[in-house]
């Protein structure tokens, strides 16, 4: 029942050339990085389950009010060359996809000791995220103008019988909840990215240590991915 000790591993990792970011309960930086990444993936799993509940709820409500949900989708389209087309939704999708690309470029730049490029790509990602939120603001104000508000604020005037029912209002309740929760995550992402920009400008990231950039990158990709599911659900179904 004895345990032996090994000199190399004594005091947890002083065999590692002293990286200022090395946390001493990890034996090596590699172990620390791997563990951090695992932690972020676990957190992202919880995010998927969080949104998953809303997707399930949406699906169930859709089967309860199929006609109302299909008709309500029309409000998410704009008039493009005389035909209904989800313009804002499509633009936002492209914006987020490009921002995922700029994020990957930023991570890559950090991994390869290119400080200026890192900052540049992170800033670009932030700008694209702001464009996303800006378009969402435009979309939301159109809805408010039409009275298509969530829950008890629903005040849509229409002669069409269907548009006055619970089902129609429920669609918009879900629309605001899901895009709103997603929007909050985009906002948090902007905050995280800004914090990364500050640290990157201070020269904190290099090939020795780029964990925060990598992890925020993972977070950003999930935020993008959730939008990839939201987009067809809300904007493309007809």
């Amino acid at each position, binding site marked *: 029942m004895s345990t032996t*000790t*090994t000199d190399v591993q004594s005091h947890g990792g002083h065999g590692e050339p002293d990286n200022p970011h090395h946390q*001493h*309960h*990890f034996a090596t930086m590699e172990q620390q990085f791997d*563990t951090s990444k695992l932690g972020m993936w676990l957190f992202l799993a*919880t995010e998927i*389950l969080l949104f*998953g509940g809303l997707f399930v709820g949406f699906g169930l409500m859709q089967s309860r009010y199929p006609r109302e949900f299909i008709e309500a989708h029309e409000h998410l389209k704009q008039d493009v060359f005389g035909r209904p087309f989800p313009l804002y939704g499509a633009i936002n999708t492209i914006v987020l996809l490009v921002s995922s690309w700029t994020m990957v470029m930023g991570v890559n730049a950090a991994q390869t000791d290119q400080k200026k490029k890192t900052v540049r790509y992170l800033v670009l990602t932030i700008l694209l995220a702001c464009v996303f939120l800006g378009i969402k603001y435009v979309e939301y104000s159109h809805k408010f103008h039409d009275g298509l508000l969530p829950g008890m604020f629903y005040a849509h005037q229409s002669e069409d019988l269907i548009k006055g029912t619970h089902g129609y209002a429920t669609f918009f309740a879900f629309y605001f909840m899901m895009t709103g929760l997603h929007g909050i995550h985009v906002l948090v992402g902007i905050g995280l990215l800004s914090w990364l920009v500050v640290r990157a400008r201070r020269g904190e990231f290099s090939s020795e240590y780029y964990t925060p950039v990598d992890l925020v990158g993972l977070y950003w990709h999930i935020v993008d991915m959730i939008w990839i599911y939201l987009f067809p659900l809300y904007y493309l179904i007809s």
Partner: protein
Amino acid sequence: MEPVLTSGARIGERPRPKKNYLNETKGFKSWALTVDHKRIGIMYLVGTLSAFLLGGIFALLVRLTLLTPQHKLFGLQVTAETYNRFFTLHGAIMVFLFIIPSIPGSLTNFVLPLMLGAKDVAFPRLNLASLYLWIVGAIMAIASMIIGAVDTGWTFYTPYSTTTSGTVTLMTAAVFVLGFSSIFTGLNFVATVHKLRAPGMGWFDMPLFVWGMYSTAVIQVLATPVLGITLVLLMLERVFQIGIFDSRIGGDPVLFQHFFWFYSHPAVYIMILPGMAIISELIPTFSRKTIFGYRAIAYSSVSLALLSFIVWGHHMFVAGQSQLAVVIFSALTFLVAIPSGVKVFNWLTTMYQGNISLETPMLYAISFLMLFAIGGLTGIFLGTLSTDVHLTDTYFVVAHFHYVMMGSTVTAFIGGLHYWWPKMTGRMPSEKWGRIAAVLWFIGFNATFLPQFILGSRGMPRRYYNYLDQFQPLHAFSTVGSWIIGLSLFMTAAYLLASLRKPMDAPDNPWGGTTMEWQTSSPPITHNFEDQPVLEHEPYDYRPKAVTH
């Protein structure tokens, strides 16, 4: 390896280090901003035990109100509304502030890294954040009790919860915050088990306590977010009437129940798996015999975690689900009974031909075996469709879940607390008082809850303030039982606290355990181990060796 039945000499052991995690740094900030898993564990212990006290007081009030049909409490008349608040607060505090966070936050936080030969958990700052989230959630929950009241039952069924007055929204928000505390703890433990094991320690060399806590952590990470979104939807329904759960505005009350139980069924496995994990440590140690069926116990923990996600509908057999759903859920529920049975048989077989001493932790472990047997067997009555129709929503269910949540989990918790008390505090608690309290606990618990099976089968519904006269003797008996439980717990608290006034003289390994936490001093130094321990033997190996340390 002789057990030390009294605090004794440290013959052949290292000298006790002067500085340990308790006294190395001092002052409020050194505790409030600590990232030491052991200190965080102690703070969680204090917090969750305080919640246990508060929830326990509400339980005593519930039972006192039910002592007679006249509902007089110390001469004051208890109204139905007050009673409804008593049982709601009892349930909500116990489930969300005590049972779910207690073992993971306190005992596991303290012991898991030590068992793995690690210096800390994977994310120490996240660990502190979990603690703070618990504190914030607890403050919000208590605020909701003081500002107004909640009378919905801990299950918050709609549409009553979306339309009743009271501080439901604040309490729901509190639970939301507590949920994130739980998620972060689970996330931390999963990463720790994957990445911070000592050199030489493969998955099947880990203590079974770790397997149990790992399985718990997986559930915490996967199930709790669904509770989170359910609570958000509940709050939005209440505040903005979005029309998802309230039928008057187009919603479906049964949908709430599906969402709620999708989390809450796995949640009960978050409650029981840590208890089972503790028992898997106590039994081999106090039987001085290797655990029987290590792999079976490990696999059963993981399979319980997975199966727990697919049986939630058994809380809703008469709630208005489709017939097909009802049948499928009942079949799956029987499946989930098997891994629990396997564990019990393995524990018993471990005791066979052992060398068993009955110190306080072992008394609680043996109590667990019997109380969990009753709890698990009565679950069969509820999983069986035809009997469930009669028994659901009656006191039979109340008795069943108290046998598993309290008779099993809390029993194991108290046993584990005694087992690791010397490690955490450096003192040995009184063995004499420990045994007396353990016996009182067993008697008091059965006296309180065994009659409730009878009440339920005779038709007494749950959450009832009034009852037919014929039920009064059983209710009175149950109430007296609750006083015995109270006495036992009061005694336990008293002698545990009294032990803190003794000198810090506990040995490194008072019980002769084989897991790594016993290789360091009692209490441990801040960095846990002087040198990185390396695993060199299979788990629970009690075969005599040439060299002992």
